[in-house]
């Protein structure tokens, strides 16, 4: 990955001929302009990349790695089950699965204080909720549109929210959550509670104008926010290179003096270590960080997308060589963790997901009166 090895252009001022002495009566405007040299010294643009490059992977204990593995398997099995229920017609509407991207949410959110730091994302939201400890039952029941669902069956797959967990949704308009994230971060700063906001968006959303309005404000006000681009290679059906002029999304904060970090989003330990670096900077009151997590979705954009815009071989290659769960499993085995311990986790997760699905299928439909509730805090 390209780091700071790029040769720096010579400072034009140092090589340019000295201007003639200005007459005393003319105000010296150059003093009002900051020196580019001084500027570079205070600009932390590449420092976080360097810090991450120096120490790429998180030094997890066996127990921690087992926990990461468990959370990733939970997301994978949950999403597979959701895909099945969708196929059976038990889930309607849109359903965007997180399969393949598990290491991102797990690696990043394991570094947050659950229930204290806030998280916000787009419509591919199941994984982020599961990684933040939200009960799979109420998520699955929302997918099936039941009264016991986390949004009482009114939101569905794309719209879920939990104030207790400080998970702020679940948003369907591409990119809108990024601006909302700035508000969440502003509240952390205002309350001086030490919390940060993690705002996720995709490589597609990275082309929405409001993302850049938000970058500017967040940097200007030094908001405690981590912007996370989950670059899975495709903005719906359009490959990144066909829809983005700058495909290295971590560089897109440069114009706003936001340091960026490219991260391998298929390795949970690398993700976690990158989160440590980013969070130390943000919690230190230095303002936002922009992380680009390079990842891959194995399924289509949504359940109705046959994903014909990419080859089977491409998907198979990612599954075979870069699968985050398989990677964590191999790492556990290498460390001498027993295969039985891993199998126990797999079994436990299968049960948990089966219970969530049973709950989601057997709990009652919403009461018809729910159509009219929750429009306002008050009523009309």
């Amino acid at each position, binding site marked *: 990955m390209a780091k700071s090895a790029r040769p720096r252009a010579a400072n034009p001022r140092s090589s340019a001929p000295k201007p003639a002495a200005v007459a005393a009566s003319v105000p010296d405007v150059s003093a009002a302009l900051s020196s580019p040299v001084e500027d570079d010294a205070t600009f932390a643009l590449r420092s976080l990349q360097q810090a991450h490059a120096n120490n790429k992977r998180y030094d997890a204990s066996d127990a921690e790695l087992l926990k990461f593995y468990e959370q990733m398997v939970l997301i994978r099995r949950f999403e597979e089950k959701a895909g099945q229920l969708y196929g059976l017609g038990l889930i*309607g509407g849109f359903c965007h699965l997180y399969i393949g991207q598990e290491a991102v949410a797990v690696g990043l959110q394991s570094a947050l204080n659950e229930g204290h730091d806030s998280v916000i994302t787009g419509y591919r939201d199941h994984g982020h909720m599961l990684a933040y400890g939200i009960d799979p039952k109420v998520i699955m029941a929302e997918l099936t549109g039941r009264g016991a669902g986390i949004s009482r069956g009114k939101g569905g797959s794309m719209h879920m929210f939990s104030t207790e967990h400080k998970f702020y949704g679940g948003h369907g308009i591409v990119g*809108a959550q990024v601006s909302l994230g700035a508000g969440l971060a502003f509240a952390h700063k205002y309350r001086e509670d030490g919390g940060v906001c993690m705002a996720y968006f995709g490589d*597609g959303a990275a082309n929405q104008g409001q993302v850049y309005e938000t970058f500017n404000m967040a940097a200007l006000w030094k908001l405690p926010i981590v912007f996370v681009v989950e670059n899975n290679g495709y903005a*719906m*059906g*359009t490959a990144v290179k*066909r829809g983005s002029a700058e495909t290295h999304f971590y560089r897109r904060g440069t114009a706003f003096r936001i340091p960026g970090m490219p991260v391998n989003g298929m390795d949970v330990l690398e993700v976690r270590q990158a989160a440590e670096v980013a969070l130390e900077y943000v919690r230190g009151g230095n303002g936002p960080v922009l992380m680009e997590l390079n990842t891959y979705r194995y399924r289509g954009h949504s359940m109705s997308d046959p994903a014909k*815009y990419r080859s089977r071989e491409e998907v198979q290659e990612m599954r075979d060589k870069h699968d985050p769960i398989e990677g964590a499993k191999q790492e556990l085995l290498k460390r001498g963790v027993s295969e039985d311990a891993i199998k126990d986790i797999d079994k436990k997760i299968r049960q948990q997901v089966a219970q969530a699905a049973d709950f989601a299928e057997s709990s009652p439909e919403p009461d018809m009166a729910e159509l009219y509730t929750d429009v306002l805090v008050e009523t009309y």
Partner: protein
Amino acid sequence: MTKMMYRDAVLSTIMEEMARDPDVVVLGEDVVGGMGTAGGPEAIGGIWSTSTGLYDRFGPGRVIDTPISESAIVGAAAGLALSGKRPVAELMFADFIGVCLDQLWNQIAKFRYMFGGKSRCPAVIRMAYGAGFNAAAQHSQSVHQILTGMPGLKVVMPATPADVKGLLRTAIRDDDPVIFLEHKALYATSGDVPDDPDFMIPFGHARLCRAGGDVTIVSTGLLLGMCEAAADRLAAEGIGCDVIDLRTTSPLDEETILDSVEVTGRLVVVDEAPPRCGLAADLRALVAEKAFSSLKAPPLQVTPPHTPIPFARELESAYLPSVDKIEDAVRRVLAWR
């Protein structure tokens, strides 16, 4: 006549107009949607299959996959149109007008007036609208109410493949900005479409789908099918309904509505948008003002409740107008004194 689906009527009209006029260009998210640049059979051709094959025929200069940037899509379409092109821009979901409302409302709709008639903005902005797919609050809305309220836009809501053909052709050849609203649930419906390569339906001319004489029902888009079904049920009991398809909400064919209400004295407006400050309220005010002496009952409306659109299937069904609800409204308007 050729039998074709609503979505194919959209596609074939765009294709014919692109072939006829080199100034017609198409842009939108995933309108090519394939791997690489060749388009080809693996390309999506838009999630609604309304641009399939355009890229192969007209190439990258005229069929443009955009980033997910609605403001810039509509803004670029407006700029293209101001300089003489005829862009057909697509917003994947009508709900996304929220992202680009400024370009629609403050820019496109106002150019001609505020520039003293010096500019033309022949842009067509197509978008898929409507509920019924459990797509929840941000992917199901009917937005004609908002756009119809903006002076400077024309708003079209075709209900049949033939109307798609005739109205979309008019839209593309029109010198004013046109919002072209396609109901998602109609894409797979079929109907006969005239083969005349210049078949056009003028804006502001409503279609009388049923003539009955007892009650006037006015609607648009998908809901006309429900209105006709309700009219058929009632006809079996000897109750005759005039069913009027507005086709365009702006301009509005007042005459057809008023002519019908002057005979029936009873009006039911059926709309998929929320009940307040919308098409249904507007039309009821129209007849109250201009056909007051003909009215035999207060005009009624069948709309969703004043709530966002719920996700769960049962809630969404309860939210939407239905044949039963329309039939009930007709009975109520007839029973009034």
